[in-house]
């Protein structure tokens, strides 16, 4: 690596992968509970498994983003990190807080956990994805501020590139919009309305800036294409993302008690939300086709291309599938939503974090790229996980279409549980696809331990 302090990225990446494994194990547990309802009950009720599954996802992606920033910012700013010690301290604080929170979910009844952690002082818990105890939420803010301070100071003392500006903007936005997680009015409509300022303005807003910056950084490195060209693309992509995504928030406001004009605003703007992802795919392939060098890390190139394609499919196509208000009227809160959620998170955020890990980790370990043997294994992991995710999405989509038909469209609608019984077959197939994903993940982890001939990293 070019700057010694980039090394702090390594523990972040390792923690990210470790928590990723945990996330998938709990995903498999939930998938099993969909078909064998009393599986692990009462030890791990579904709601607990789901909290662990989704919270681990968020936490490991945050680890990934922070690791990525610690790796990228010194190189972009052409200077050492402002404070590697602070970065390392924050790593341990975040890891311990995250682990304690997960253990709290698993070991303490949620209501007791809420009482123990100050939820009666300021009630923020028990809302989807924002289940964290108040003290964890405050911890997240402190870690985020220390992290932002660190990378902002680094950028200020060094070179300011478009990539680092976009990355900083995305990360600051992430921290700022998280503050809405502390706002929980009794008025349910208002609660939901601003809940989306965290959830939507993260994943369909500022996170896309982070995604774009990470992808652009890796593409510059592996293709050798001129920075001017890549950064121009980056601006175009994030323009499309925010111009469509901000008002696109409206697609969550159709049925929660907000005014009905959101059906128009939400439908029109969110129908355009696939555009940035389409541009991203074209961008990635274009840059790789115009490459000026053959980077020895072919696995990283594969992840970068895969991110474009899968983000477009998962976030773009599967999002569009149910975003128009007249369609969403029937699909809202069904397995269609779950299908979209899985592929979008995997295609956009999981894959981009794995892209930067794939690129940076060998360099952090002192080589330009992993050995051929290790890369072949990593590429196997890529295909296993990606194809498994395609199947998970297809099976959930099939389940969702059937569910919507039986429960909502039919002249004699079935009850929720009766409809669920009818789609069991698809839930079994989803679980098997989940097992395939887990196998891919195991192969991925193994690829880090496979040795072989490598070239030393330059500088």
């Amino acid at each position: 690596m070019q700057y010694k302090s980039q090394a702090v990225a390594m523990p972040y990446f390792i923690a990210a992968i470790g928590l990723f494994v945990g996330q998938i194990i709990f995903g498999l547990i939930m998938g099993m509970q969909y078909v064998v309802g009393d599986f692990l009950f009462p030890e791990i009720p579904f709601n607990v498994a789901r909290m662990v599954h989704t919270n681990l996802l968020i936490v490991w992606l945050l680890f990934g983003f922070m690791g990525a920033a610690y790796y990228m910012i010194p190189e972009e700013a052409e200077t050492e990190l402002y404070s590697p010690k602070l970065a390392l301290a924050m790593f341990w604080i975040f890891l311990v807080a995250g682990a304690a929170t997960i253990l709290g979910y698993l070991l303490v009844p949620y209501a007791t956990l809420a009482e123990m952690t100050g939820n009666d002082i300021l009630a923020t818990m028990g809302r989807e994805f924002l289940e964290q105890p108040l003290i964890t939420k405050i911890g997240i803010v402190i870690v985020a501020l220390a992290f932002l301070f660190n990378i902002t100071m680094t950028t200020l003392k060094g070179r300011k590139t478009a990539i680092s500006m976009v990355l900083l903007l995305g990360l600051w936005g992430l921290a700022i919009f998280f503050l809405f997680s502390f706002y929980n009015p009794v008025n349910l409509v208002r609660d939901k309305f601003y809940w989306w300022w965290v959830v939507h303005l993260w994943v369909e807003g500022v996170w896309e800036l982070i995604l774009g910056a990470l992808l652009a950084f890796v593409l510059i490195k592996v293709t050798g294409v001129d920075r001017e060209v890549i950064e121009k693309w980056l601006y175009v992509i994030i323009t499309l993302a925010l111009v469509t995504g901000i008002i696109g928030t409206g697609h969550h406001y159709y049925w929660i008690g907000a005014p009905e004009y959101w059906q128009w605003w939400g439908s029109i703007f969110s129908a355009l939300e696939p555009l940035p992802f389409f541009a991203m795919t074209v961008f990635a392939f274009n840059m790789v086709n115009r490459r000026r060098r053959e980077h020895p890390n072919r696995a990283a190139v594969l992840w970068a291309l895969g991110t474009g394609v899968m983000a477009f499919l998962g976030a773009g196509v599967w999002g569009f599938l149910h975003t128009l208000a007249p369609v969403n009227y029937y699909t809202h809160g069904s397995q269609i939503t779950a299908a979209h959620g899985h592929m979008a998170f995997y295609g956009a955020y999981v894959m981009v974090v794995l892209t930067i890990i794939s690129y940076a980790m060998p360099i952090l370990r002192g080589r330009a790229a992993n050995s051929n043997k290790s890369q072949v294994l990593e590429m196997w992991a890529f295909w296993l996980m990606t194809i498994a995710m395609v199947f998970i999405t297809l099976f959930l989509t099939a389940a969702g279409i059937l569910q919507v038909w039986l429960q909502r469209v039919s002249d004699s609608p079935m009850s929720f549980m009766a409809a669920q019984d009818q789609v069991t077959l698809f839930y079994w197939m989803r679980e098997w696809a989940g097992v395939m994903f887990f196998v891919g993940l195991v192969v991925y982890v193994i690829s880090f331990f496979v040795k072989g001939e490598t070239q030393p990293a330059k500088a």
Partner: protein
Amino acid sequence: MSGIFTKSMARNIFYGGTVFFFLLFLALTFDTERELPSRDNSHNITPEVAAGKHIWETRNCIGCHSLLGEGAYFAPELGNVYVRRGPEFIKAWMQSMPTMAPGRRQMPNFNLTDEELDELVAFLKYTSEINTANWPPNIEG
């Protein structure tokens, strides 16, 4: 993209576009806030409803159920459960959990007191009277 379209033009469009659409979003939010009282049933929020929402949150109901379509999809929609089942059924249901029927999805027993059950039902009643633009499509949710 040709040479005429430069990076700084792209950057300016990004900042301009983002600021414009964020301001538009704020304007729509402002208007939403103005209109909410006519739709959100907030005039029926009592201390009992507030206590019910607190119970809803601290038992992590959203971890299995959806409420106005948001949440998990493991168990039935509860935004309209007050209309679908009625207060007595809801209370009796919660008290008889878990069924322990082999192979069936299980709901924990939260050991709520009668007062807490009433509060939870009050919250679900309030929720069912929010104007949701006629969603869900039918009573099954």
